[in-house]
């Protein structure tokens, strides 16, 4: 079973040389730590950065330089700053190659819910609806089971949707799943120490076990 860093580490393997990548709040943010140093990748932050760098050294924080999670960050060489219209313009124009974000629920047809729990929590969708509606390649990083022990990989989302038919891949503490065009979570890798049986119990939606399921190498 993976911890948060493990999930991030596994997702980092999906990042390829030359990609522009948008990382959501939470586990996705950690992915940046596992991108191999030699690889040319630029991070986009939808509040208006391309070429986002790591957190600043203590004492070098700049209130005017934050990421989409409102955290203080830095800029790398070759970075650029732009306004929100251009930021979402380049997202809609599919210039960002890979989007990684968290979710509360994902359905077997690639729907995602991650912005609202009616009557309980309404923080808003931020840029998530824009990202999932336009991105070419979207990976969800999430816990597969919620605190009440219920699966978050569902036949159909119960919570209000963020986007439909958009998620391509899900990485959880238990495994890696491709979402099939015809519907279904296709298990392609299990986390170390996790059995296919564990995964069956933790998956409420349609599960397809690949013939070539293997244990994750991270």
């Amino acid at each position, binding site marked *: 079973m993976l911890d948060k860093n493990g999930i991030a580490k596994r997702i980092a393997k999906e990042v390829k040389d030359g990609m522009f990548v948008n990382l959501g709040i939470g586990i996705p943010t950690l992915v940046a730590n596992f991108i191999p140093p030699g690889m040319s990748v630029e991070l986009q*932050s*939808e*509040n*208006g*950065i391309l070429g986002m760098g*790591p*957190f*600043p*050294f*203590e*004492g*070098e*924080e*700049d*209130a*005017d*330089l*934050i*990421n989409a*999670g*409102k*955290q*203080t*960050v830095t*800029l790398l060489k070759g970075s650029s*700053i*732009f*306004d*929100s*219209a251009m*930021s*979402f*313009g380049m*997202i*809609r*124009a*599919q210039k960002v190659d890979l989007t990684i974000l968290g979710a509360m629920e994902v359905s077997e047809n690639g*729907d995602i819910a991650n912005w609202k729990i009616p009557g309980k929590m*309404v*923080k*808003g*969708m*931020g*840029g*998530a*609806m*824009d990202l999932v*509606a*336009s991105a070419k390649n979207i990976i969800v990083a999430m816990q597969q089971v919620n605190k009440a022990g219920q699966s978050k990989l569902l036949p159909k989302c119960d919570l*209000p*949707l*963020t*986007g*439909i*038919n958009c998620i391509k891949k899900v990485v959880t503490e238990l495994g890696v799943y491709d979402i099939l065009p015809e519907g279904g979570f296709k298990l392609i890798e299990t986390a170390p120490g996790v059995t296919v049986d564990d995964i069956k119990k933790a998956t409420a939606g349609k599960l397809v076990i690949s013939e070539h399921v293997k244990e994750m190498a991270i």
Partner: protein
Amino acid sequence: MINRVVKNAEEALKGVKDNQTIMFGGFGLCGIPENCINQMIKMGTKGITAISNNAGVDDFGLGLLLQTKQIKKMISSYVGENEEFERQMLSGELEVELIPQGTLATRCLAAAYGMPVIYTPAGVGTEVAIGKEVRKFKYNGQEKEYLMEAAFEADFAIVKAWKGDTAGNLIFKSTARNFNPMMAMAGKITVAEVEQLVPAGELDPDQIHTPGIYVHRIFQGSHYEKRIEQRTVRKKN
């Protein structure tokens, strides 16, 4: 050169009335018009419909105008980090319209560029689409559904820039840019507060982010607190 300078926030916000729609620049607490927000509290303007990506925190930014209950309605994309907001929303005191961040930005751009509507795929198939025109278009070789979204209409847009000149030209610093340029271009009356106000001619014309034609009133603000919402750092090793 057409001079756009006013003395201070008080003069800049003359004519703001109860029950108007007002845009506020900024993302989180970054690049918010601190002086004008304080002035709005002094003025006690009521019934504000605020278009702003966020709602500040409990004791800073637009959160201050929530505390004083001057805001009737918020049009935002993300409103976490604010308990008073949540309380007012759940109790029904505060009207809230949540829209995708890119939709918010682009509805400002539409107003700025004289486009009555724009189409975006954000929100298709979700509750954001309820009551909106859905239409199929081909773009980039792909046919998909888009929502029609209208340009905002705002009586005032209140923005914060880093530098400005007496002609109203604005330059923003780093991610304090965010929504400020589009909102500056989208207000019927646009008010800009700047950290440094310089004489016309000092800014490079090639480096202006918002041309003065869009900015009706400009003044140099003071006492910027520039609070950091999430101070994240790494250690030197």
